[in-house]
């Protein structure tokens, strides 16, 4: 792992098959936080869609 990867920029996809050995939150911080944020956006869209259907 490079210094930037050790500090949050490691790739979950590239390491997918070896995650049980390599996983720490610090290493995959940007992937994890951004992925979670994007799913939160998806949830917001779905909630708005439900609300629209009942409006």
């Amino acid at each position, binding site marked *: *792992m*490079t*210094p*930037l*990867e050790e500090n949050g*920029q490691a*790739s*979950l*996809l*590239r390491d*997918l*098959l070896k995650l049980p050995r390599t996983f720490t939150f610090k290493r995959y911080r*940007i*992937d994890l936080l*951004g*992925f979670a*944020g*994007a*799913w939160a*956006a*998806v949830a917001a*869209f*779905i909630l*708005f*869609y*439900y609300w*629209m*259907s*009942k*409006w």
Partner: protein
Amino acid sequence: MKINLSALDWLVLAVYLGGITVIGLIASRKVKTSEGFFMGNRAFGKLVMLAQSLGTGTHSDQAVGVAGAAYTSGLSGIWYQWIWLFTTPFYWLLAPIFRRLRVVTIAEFFELRYGRKYSIVYAAVCVYLLALWQGISIKGTAVTVAAITGVPEWIIAVVVAVVFTVYGVAGGLAAAAVTDFVQGLFIVILSFLVVPFGMAKIGGFAGLHRALPPQFFTVFSAPGGELSKFNVTMLVLSGLAGIVVQPHMMAVAATGKTEMNCRVGWTYGNFIKRACTIGWTLTGLIAVVLFPGVPFHEREKVFGMAIATLLPAGLIGLMVASLLATVMATCSAFMVDGAALFTEDLYKPLLGAKAAEKSEAHYMKVARLSSLGITGIGFVLGLTMGSVVQATVLFISMLPFIGVAFWLGIVWPRANRFGAWACLIGSAIVYLGTKAHGSTNAWSSLFSLTTGVLLLVVVSVLTPPEPAEKMERVFGYISVPVGEEDLLPGTGENA
């Protein structure tokens, strides 16, 4: 021929078309190399990346298709585009992979990963698809704009093609991306401008619910319907498999200056599009109330009918400009992406050892001529295409066969060219075979994707691995974030 545009509408259109051409030509002055032409020197900031993602990925035929689907299926018509909603978070994870590969095209990745033959087949198919996609976009927009304005379709198609070709051929991706900045704004206008006028006329959401039966407000259509849960799920899965090999994705995902620019641009540019889809769906629902009885095969006309009926003078011109913006943003990017595939992955291999002897100016000339050629082919193809929605579903159904090889190619070093070919051929046979036996798109996608994954894994395990030096080029590069280029395998490589 009756033209339904006021002087104010014409003025808005003239300012838009003239302005976008000038902006594109100004942006083109910085383009000196083929890397600059194809990839904008990988120097785009977050806002340009957002606009590029929105502009390249949004075309008026999608708005027209979703509004038409909502007209017949109700609110669930949104899934024609929202199948991509669940794939969008993955762009956050994929963007740094694309950026770190440090290649110009996805075909270049395939050459490194699975060899030249696989790369050439992919590049040839994608050049054809990019031409076809341009044709579909131009035709779809010309039909809609002609219905609104009364101007003949062929005149609209020619004007659109000439304008984006002028700035696209001159400035490549830089011109396309900078104009996308303006076009993106027009796309948002396009998506929502009709809604307040329509809602005011039908009495808002309360009026909409009073006028339409409850099935128009279900989240999915009935089981077995075109937008049932199973069909939507399979479209999502095949969409996720196929999105990574859509030929324009390398430019959309990997032209940012930093990895964060790429992540934010690709992911949130697409979220803006998902928001725009809500406007298209509402336009379709409003149309059900205002124009009942439009036959199923003419449902894609309701978007244009809403514009022509609901908007006052001046705003019709703005809406037509917005429609043109969607097609020009998409086609200029597709034109450059097609030229990149042709120049880098078909023309250079054809030259063989002589490729290194040719000058940068020579490749710029090839890039510009191939841009023109691909758009010309697309223009002719566009005149012969059928329903835009059917074409979209077909497009999504075919790409995942190659997408499986991409996904396994980045997560599993043992995947090899034999497995990739077995996956491609096996999936295609299963897909076409099940379709021939009457299976729906959804079931055919399920069978072919499962077959593809199994074949790739089994055949790869049973055959020799790819050369170690090629694997080092792929996985070694993916492991080095942008900004740490001094750590790349081999010294002196450019990022």
